[in-house]
């Protein structure tokens, strides 16, 4: 139950050393808020004062870059995967080509 969130190296200290955390939420924004409740200060690392995702962060929902869905409003369901990736990565569309 809950959404599985993979925590990147730079944020693990803030997440009590965890590489994966399970939280509740029905959108990506809610998932971030849930993470912030569990680990105070978490949201501020990901989002600026306006609540927008910072420039150097990409978030993937089931391997799909949320910029190509509804951004932070993207709906998520139980057992979904969220990955937080520093943007020196890449990964557009997220579709696996056969």
């Amino acid at each position, binding site marked *: 139950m809950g959404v599985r969130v993979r925590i990147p190296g730079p944020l693990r200290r803030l997440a009590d050393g965890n590489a994966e955390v399970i939280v509740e939420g029905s959108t990506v924004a809610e998932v971030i808020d849930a993470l912030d409740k569990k680990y105070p200060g978490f949201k501020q690392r990901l989002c600026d004062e306006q609540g927008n995702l910072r420039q*150097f962060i990409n978030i993937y929902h089931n391997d799909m870059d949320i910029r190509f869905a509804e951004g932070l409003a993207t709906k998520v369901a139980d057992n979904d995967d969220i990955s937080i990736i520093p943007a020196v*990565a*890449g*990964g557009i569309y997220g579709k696996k080509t056969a």
Partner: protein
Amino acid sequence: MGKIKGLKCRECGARYPIQPTHVCELCFGPLDVEYDYEYIRKHISREKIEQGPASMWRYKDILPIEDDDEIITLSEGFTPLIHAKRLGAVLGLDNLYLKNDTVNPTNSFKDRVVSVASSFAKAHGFETIACASTGNLAHAVAAYAAHSGLEGCVFIPYDLEATKVAAISVFAPRIYAVRGNYDDVNRLCTELADTYPWGFVNINLRPYYSEGSKTLTFETVEQLGWRIPDEIVIPVASGCQFVKHRRAIEELKLLGLVDDDKVPRFTGAQALGCAPVYNAFQEGTDLIKPVKPNTIAKSIAIGNPSDGTYVCRIARDTKGVIEAATEEEIIEGIELLAKTEGIFTETAGGVTVAVLKKLAQAERWKRDEIVVAYVTGHGFKTMDYLTDKKASIVEIDASFENFTKQFPP
């Protein structure tokens, strides 16, 4: 320490000790090595460099490897700077120079960055070096792993050119062919780098790896007689090297190695089939919108370039441009370079030459300006795309009679 202060975030300025990380914990910006230039200034001089090894390591004082640490080297770098008189004549340039990095140990400029990264890895106790690669980097990592005795582990897109895959395989690294494009490979490796104790040269070792690129520009200036060129044309994939070349010019000045106050114009070359940086530049912004790559210039087919923003800014600040080539122009570029200068470059090099030609035809330069183009990889890497030139091949019998009849002397 001595010459190295630590790591510094390019965005927010946060500082970190020397460690295998590439991302700021506060703002996720990229980290750069920070040097103590006062210290280095006391130890460096033109004479010392000129008496150094005939490789990029003549610049060891400005590279992030300590004096006591073993250098993993196959004598990469210090490649020829060719005065391209015949190509220049075609383009209307009397002082066109080509930095020929096709002649490196694994035939691309990646040998420079991998030499630094593998030296760092070994010095810091890594047993495995790894990478996400469009081909050239994997080739270099495989070779330098073998040469150093470290384990090699490379991640490539599954549809990489056959010649590149064969060349990588011969060194017997572990090869993972990912069902996706380079951006997918890179994202996977970014997560793996947090989980496996491997030195991903272009991920967790990126700040050290990227320093190796500077040597291309150090050498170019040295080989021009310690002169700064008017413009440098560089192919753009992630934009990593473009940023470091700009930094290299600053360092040459900071260290008193050049007297000139001039800053060269930095111009980037992309393939139209994967031109996120070109698009941003043309639109007058520096915010990169990712694209899905579709080009034969696979070694620069990065749809989501990590340093794209900085490339746009540097191009604008230095009055350079970002220009792009069509697929046909890429092949024409390879052939033009080969026919005029006897240098055989891969598709990424074809992009560079095509952009040179485009800008020359648009009369960007005065005849006597010093323009340097970086030729970053050898043509053997991308043989699959050469057009079938049967027309220039004549099949004949081993007969003197027939030949002299057909082609009278």
